[in-house]
């Protein structure tokens, strides 16, 4: 999808300095992809409960990994799905690490973590609830199984069923079923 895309000239938009070397074409390509995808990645991460600071760190890590991936001459096939897949894996990994650290790290004198991964307040979903006109939709969204929420969010970010399947390691049929199930719940909620 992105392999044939013309890379926009970012030299004018970037931070420039007389001391800085001109970015290489590969650096420019990665920054161009960052410009195209970082909003979508952040929204996806927020929708799955990742706090803002963690989201920014994950996105940064994703594009550094992308740079290394391309530096090594690895596949350029569908970089959009690749980027979402790495972001998804990193967010899951952080979640698991935080759960483990919670068990092991007891800091008697310290305050609780400011940005707890799963029960921080306010979280994006809580903020969505503030909007009364969307409260019904949001309550349905929150009640969905985690995998269904992820499918829905990725579809809302414009990813195809095949890409969603790749990112979440699901079959095409499972993606279609998940989305169908979620939308049926929305429709039923609206009919009440």
């Amino acid at each position, binding site marked *: 999808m992105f392999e044939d895309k013309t890379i926009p000239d970012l030299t004018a938009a970037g931070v420039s300095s007389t001391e800085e070397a001109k970015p290489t074409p590969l650096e420019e390509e990665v*920054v161009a992809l960052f410009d195209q995808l970082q909003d979508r990645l952040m*929204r996806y991460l927020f929708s799955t409960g990742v706090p803002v600071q963690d989201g920014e760190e994950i996105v*940064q890590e994703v594009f550094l990994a992308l740079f*290394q991936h391309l530096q090594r001459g690895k596949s350029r096939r569908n970089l959009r799905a690749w980027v979402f897949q790495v972001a998804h894996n990193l967010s899951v990994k952080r979640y698991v690490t935080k759960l483990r650290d919670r068990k092991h790290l007891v*800091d008697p004198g310290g*305050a609780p973590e400011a940005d707890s991964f799963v029960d921080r307040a306010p979280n994006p979903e809580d903020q*969505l609830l503030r*909007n009364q006109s969307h409260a019904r939709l949001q309550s349905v969204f929150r009640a969905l199984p985690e995998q269904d929420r992820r499918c829905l969010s990725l579809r*809302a970010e414009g990813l195809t069923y095949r890409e969603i399947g790749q990112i979440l390691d699901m079959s095409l049929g499972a993606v279609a079923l998940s989305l169908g199930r979620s939308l049926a719940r*929305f429709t039923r909620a609206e009919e009440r």
Partner: protein
Amino acid sequence: MLSDNSHLSDQELLLAADGELPPARAGQVASHLAGCWTCRVRKGEIEASIGEFVHAYRGDLDPLLPSPAGPRALLKAQLAEMTAERAAAPPTWRTRWLHGPNPRYAGAALFLAVLALLIYLRPGFESRRAFHVVPVSFPEPSLTPGVAAGVNRDQICHSVPPKNRIVPASLQRRVFEEYGISGAEPRAYEVDYLITPALGGADDIRNLWPQSYSSAVWNARVKDALEDRLHDLVCDGRLDLATAQRDISSDWIAAYKKYFETDRPLQ
């Protein structure tokens, strides 16, 4: 084929709305929809649900998006750093191959590559990741995510850990193997804890990586200064231990810039 009396399932209507039906089936569904008010109305309802969801999703999450300017500038700086370090690193077989200066040697290079492949594939040859790109300032997240031991602030601040705990030689060898660094190169590296033991880092290979002494800017000595700084902040009660561990393991250069309030190492 669809009979005149059957209706499309919601699943098929959704696949049709998303353009995910196989072409042959898409044609059948389109002609059914053209003649069936019931299915067309249902498809409209499904699309209305999608529209409402997207409206809520975007409308409420977009305001939470931070400005991308800072992360974008940080990314550009880190990419430039990685490019500079790669250029400074000894050329690997891959860089020689991709950027080889003289096409006259292409035939010889090809011969050597075939020879190497034959040796590599011969029975009994030990498989290893010798062609891994050698990192210098950044740990490979998949190899070195950083691991904390189960210790708390009191244990860290009321004991005196050795300044630079020696990593056992066997563990060092495993780290070099993981990162694909050959026998001649390790002297240029410090096998470093990503989360230093002085901040509760574990003696775990997932917390160890080969950091270059020769890196021009962000080298092992700079990271040592960051570790001292974070230890002082934690023990002075000005920084939470978990935050210090997270910051140094997720991006130690960004952590240095944050805690020293500078874009360059203070040396």
